[in-house]
């Protein structure tokens, strides 16, 4: 059978194939990725897109968590101070209720409670990174204003809005407690109780009633404080989960699109050897023919 006397085109096409293989191996080695363009592995490329989406989402959840955790911790420690200030108010009240205390002493006690009142206003107007923490969602203005026409001595100008923040798939947490629920809750109004204590110390009557009012406000704040502790715990747990989730996603990303370097390098060596062999074959073709022997 007569064979094709000119094998060069075949050899050239073989050369271009090994060259393609070398290029693809080099690209994989350089990028560390086996999926550099979607056509390298369409199914994995599509999964990598979803993986990138999930990773970005998890990163955002983590940022949200660290942003609200800071605010929550600040709010929690402010409420801690509120609780101890109210304890002090109760003991001042008890002192004032003692029958041996005269009007002058009570006036001194009343003015100390007034100091406590301003301290409470300042705590309730706590701001974190420029936002008032206890103002509901009206965070741009201080929620509590001094108001002598109001029975409680203050006016609440915040709202009752609560922000829900998503920190995981189908997991949202409330990110704040509005002042209307904390300090100005009907029946346990902190400012009303403190104002009543001041008035009763000044007049010397109804001190016991005022003390029990402050006590119930104290109980109320203590109960509400649990909210912050709970959410902070929940956020910590979620943060731990998300951190391991991100690691998981990174591993998955590597499985889907990472280059198997040992395999790529051995492929590369094979392709280079094949290329060398082909080149030598090209060099060898038809170096001699019958003409060389005709004299």
């Amino acid at each position, binding site marked *: 059978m007569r064979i094709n006397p000119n094998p060069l085109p075949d050899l050239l*096409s073989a050369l271009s194939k090994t060259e393609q293989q070398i290029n693809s191996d080099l690209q994989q080695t350089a990028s560390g990725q086996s999926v550099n363009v979607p056509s390298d592995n369409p199914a994995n490329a599509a999964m990598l897109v979803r993986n990138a989406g999930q990773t970005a989402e998890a990163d955002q959840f983590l940022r949200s968590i660290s942003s609200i955790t800071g605010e929550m911790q600040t709010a929690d420690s402010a409420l801690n101070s509120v609780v101890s200030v109210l304890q002090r108010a109760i003991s001042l009240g008890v002192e004032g209720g003692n029958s041996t205390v005269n009007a002058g002493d009570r006036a001194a006690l009343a003015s100390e409670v007034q100091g406590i009142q301003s301290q409470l206003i300042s705590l309730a107007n706590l701001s974190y990174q420029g936002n008032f923490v206890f103002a509901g969602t009206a965070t*741009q203005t201080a929620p509590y204003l001094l108001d002598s026409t109001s029975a409680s001595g203050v006016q609440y100008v915040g709202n009752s809005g609560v922000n*829900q923040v998503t920190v995981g798939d189908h997991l949202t947490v409330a990110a704040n407690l509005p002042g209307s629920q904390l300090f100005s809750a009907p029946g346990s109004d902190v400012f009303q109780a403190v104002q009543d204590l001041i008035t009763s110390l000044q007049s010397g009557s109804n001190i016991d009633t005022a003390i029990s009012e402050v006590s119930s406000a104290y109980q109320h704040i203590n109960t509400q404080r649990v909210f912050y502790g709970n959410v902070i715990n929940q956020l910590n747990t979620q943060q731990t989960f998300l951190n391991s989730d991100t690691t998981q996603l990174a591993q998955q990303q590597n499985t889907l699109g990472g280059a198997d370097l040992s395999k790529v390098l051995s492929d590369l060596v094979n392709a280079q050897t094949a290329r060398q062999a082909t080149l030598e074959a090209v060099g060898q073709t038809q170096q001699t023919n019958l003409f060389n022997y005709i004299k």
Partner: protein
Amino acid sequence: MGQSAGTFIDQRTQLIDQLSSLVDVSVIPSDNTLTLTTSSGTALVAGQQSFQLSTQPDTSGSQHIFAEGRDITSTIVSGQLGGELQARDQQIPSIQAQLDTLAAGLANAVNAVQTSGYDLNGNSSTKNNLFTPPPASTTGAAASLSVAITDPALIAASSDGSAGSNGNAEAMYGLSNQAIISGQSPTTFYSGIVFNIGNAVANTSAAQNASSLVLQQLNDQRSSISGVSLDEEAANMMRYQQAYAASAEVISSINTMMEAVINMKTS
């Protein structure tokens, strides 16, 4: 002196070769001439006559191919030209349409949430779209996707009008898991596009590989018949040289004989 037609036939075959890598052509040989048509029957050469193809841009600026005033673009389905036309007129537009659907779906969904909320200044955002509204036909939506506002304070993050509210921002986030684009979430839809493109390219590369192997095989077969082997030619040359030498010997023998005969007469 008349030249051999062989050279011209070779030249013609080579030209047909070149042409058929561009478009699929059929060759119908008759006695001394041939007729060349595209595979769908548009005449290119008939006997002594050739028919030139021309191009004209359509309204969108794409060139169309005309033969004798007739648009034959859609009938060219193979060859390099057929491949490029298919990519230009079918595959790329289909991917563009998917991107447009994604862009339009996303822009409309975000705008719907945006316009139901309040900006940082507490103003209702009814009239402040976040994205320039995409065309209703969605054609060109991806290319023209742009943010309509320049002031970040106009983003409607608030759902109750107060500056600290995040209700509407949460609702926008919620879109990421909603089936807002052809019944799929944006990420799922986009990963579908990525898969389609990757799959189309991978399939095409595989088909190209297969075709080039077939081509190589056919070239090998053709060359095994028509290729020039130097050994063969050398052998033939030696054969002809020897025949020539042998003929010369015969002539020289005849010559010697003739000489002898002539000398016999004169002597």
